[in-house]
């Protein structure tokens, strides 16, 4: 996973100040602008719960920046989402309803700006909002609960999962959780590699804490404990000591940002530590950005909930890959695929609910299986993640090759 490098402390600190400021100022400003308050997009404002099928366009709001708007903008979300909108409309819409969207440049680093953009989005009365990516989504939780407009997270954030500190019953995630990613890595190490001594290199970022906890619990369930664990700061440029600590391991799990994951894999290979090095989505951007040295590639196993690689992929995934390449000239990332599938899920859920009512739309998210996505079928887990499957790929050949599929039992209970 390519994570946004934003200090959680900074984001949350800013969020507290911004939330207080907005809470204080919201009532007066909303009534004086266009007559719509942040809550105006909530239940029944534009949707009707009558039995007659609505023919109104399905209105979505995207909460992310695109390239040029800030130094932290990631273009992939917009490109993946636009492809989905075009695809749905080309097919006549969803149940005959055209899909429309408005993008609001919500900052991944500025909580105040993100809240402002969210409130602007509410004035457009969307049925579902998508984004923002990264830990900044935590600052929207209170607003989401208040407006009762369903939100789809396009990048994982464990604290924002349902049941966690910043979770909301109106928030869902397109991909699998980091905890599922951690359990998939453990499954591969134990059942495929048959490793007895397992090392862990991890990021101290609180977002990764869920994965680390899941890894330790999954190992404990199998009567195994980590032989070595080392944390690597998110801006480390040298991980020699962490790499050397992995000598003698049968497998190493790497749950860090992509730069440090590539660095760890490279430095282990340089030190002759040629054992399976199992990560999650962090290794995919490392590979596409050319950060992994040739000697390290045979060791690497990545894991993602979107299988976009090789010949043996679903027709829907292949179609998405081809559309994406035609539109951008680049290979799609899992982030683009997640945004694509988020649009498809959001549009279908809105059409099936036949209403913009947040509770009705959320009910669709919770109960239905959404098919035809680039990442496969989507069904909500108890943590409101729309996927519980991980595809594991070897990077031996320089491009991801499927070597295992993991279905998280915790996600299907």
């Amino acid at each position: 996973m390519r994570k946004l490098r934003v200090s959680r402390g900074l984001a949350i600190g800013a969020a507290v100040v911004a939330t207080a400021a907005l809470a204080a100022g919201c009532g007066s400003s909303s009534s004086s602008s266009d007559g719509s308050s942040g809550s105006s997009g909530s239940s029944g404002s534009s949707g009707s719960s009558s039995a007659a099928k609505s023919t109104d366009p399905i209105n979505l709001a995207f909460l992310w920046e695109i390239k040029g708007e800030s130094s932290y903008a990631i273009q992939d979300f917009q490109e993946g989402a636009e492809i989905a909108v075009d695809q749905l409309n080309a097919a006549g819409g969803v149940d005959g309803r055209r899909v429309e969207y408005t993008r609001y440049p919500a900052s991944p680093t500025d909580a105040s700006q993100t809240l402002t953009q969210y409130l602007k989005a509410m004035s457009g009365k969307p049925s579902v909002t998508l984004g923002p990516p990264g830990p900044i989504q935590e600052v929207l939780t209170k607003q989401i609960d208040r407006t009762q407009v369903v939100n789809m997270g396009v990048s994982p954030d464990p604290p924002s999962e349902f049941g966690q500190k910043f979770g909301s019953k109106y928030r869902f995630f397109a991909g699998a959780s980091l905890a599922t990613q951690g359990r998939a890595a453990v499954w591969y190490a134990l059942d495929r590699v048959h490793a007895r001594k397992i090392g862990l290199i991890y990021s101290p970022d609180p977002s990764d804490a869920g994965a680390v906890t899941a890894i330790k619990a999954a190992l404990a369930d199998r009567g195994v404990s980590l032989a070595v664990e080392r944390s690597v700061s998110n801006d480390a440029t040298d991980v020699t000591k962490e790499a050397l600590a992995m000598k003698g391991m049968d497998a190493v799990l790497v749950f860090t940002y992509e730069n440090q994951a590539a660095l760890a894999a490279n430095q282990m290979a340089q030190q002759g530590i040629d054992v399976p090095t199992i990560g999650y989505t962090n290794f995919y951007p490392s590979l596409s950005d050319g950060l992994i040295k040739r000697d390290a590639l045979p060791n690497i196993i990545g894991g993602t909930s979107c299988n976009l690689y090789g010949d043996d992929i679903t027709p829907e995934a292949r179609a998405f890959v081809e559309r994406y390449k035609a539109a951008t000239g680049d290979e799609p990332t899992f982030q683009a695929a997640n945004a694509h599938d988020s649009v498809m899920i959001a549009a279908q859920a809105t059409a099936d609910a036949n209403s913009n009512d947040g509770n009705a739309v959320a009910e669709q998210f919770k109960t239905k299986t959404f098919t035809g996505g680039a990442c496969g079928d989507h069904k909500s887990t108890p943590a409101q993640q729309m996927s519980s499957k991980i595809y594991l790929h070897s990077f031996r050949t320089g491009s991801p090759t499927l070597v295992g599929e993991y279905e998280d039992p915790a996600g299907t209970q």
Partner: protein
Amino acid sequence: MSEFLGLCASGIALAAVLTLVALGLVLLYKATNVVSFAQGDLMTAGAYVAFWLTAQEHIAIVPAYLLTLLILFAVGVAMERIAYAPLRRASPIAVVLGTLGVALAIRSALGIWQGTTPKNLSSPVGDGSVNIFGAAVTDQRLLVIGVTAVIVLVLGYVFNSTRYGRQLRALAADREAAQLMGIRVNGLATIAFGASAALAALAGVLVAPLGAIDLNLGFNMMITAFAVAVLAGFGSIGGIVVSAILVGLVQQVLGNYVLQDYSDVLPFGLMLIVIIIRPRGLFTAMQGSRV
């Protein structure tokens, strides 16, 4: 034993990069009394410019690296004109905040120019490594150490044996007296800003091939280099080199055996201890005798 040697090599390579960044900080401080918080982002900028020249403009690595140093020298000069010259009579705090503003501007501009995707900068010596008593040391790390050694020798010569160096030392010793002696303080400041930026860029192009280029590449390196400069008492080149080696070894070697998860903090712990015991730094006596 091989692990220990590998860690030592890593620590010395880290020390080499820290030396370059700290030299830039101290050079600027000597010439202008300014501690520049833009040094880290200038380092990042150097890496991005080198990436642009090699990967996007397809210029050969070594000429591209040299061109990068020239470009960053010009950026440093521009920075002096924009962020320092207008504030010359302002309080030191205002000038330091000015450098912080430049740092943020550089970072934002780099992100908008090249995006947030990490970049891979090629090494002029490839991805190979040599085995030293069982420890694999990459060719790039050896290059970092070698280039830094050359730069230290060149700067030592410049400061001790050239007119510019003597003027700079006079300026550092007594700014007003230097001005009365006819030293062109403003001209020296401009050169110091350019040279300092070029040193940061050199650190950037040397360290980037070891990992990846992203917007945070230089900032934390600058903070650690600041600890090096404080340890050295913002003093002599020799003091900076010794302090950098101390910090590199503490972080890489000691950090492997003690407080493994907090090794990044160790240099700052060392800095605090030194500030408490010797507020003027470890090498102030040496500095006093030289100026």
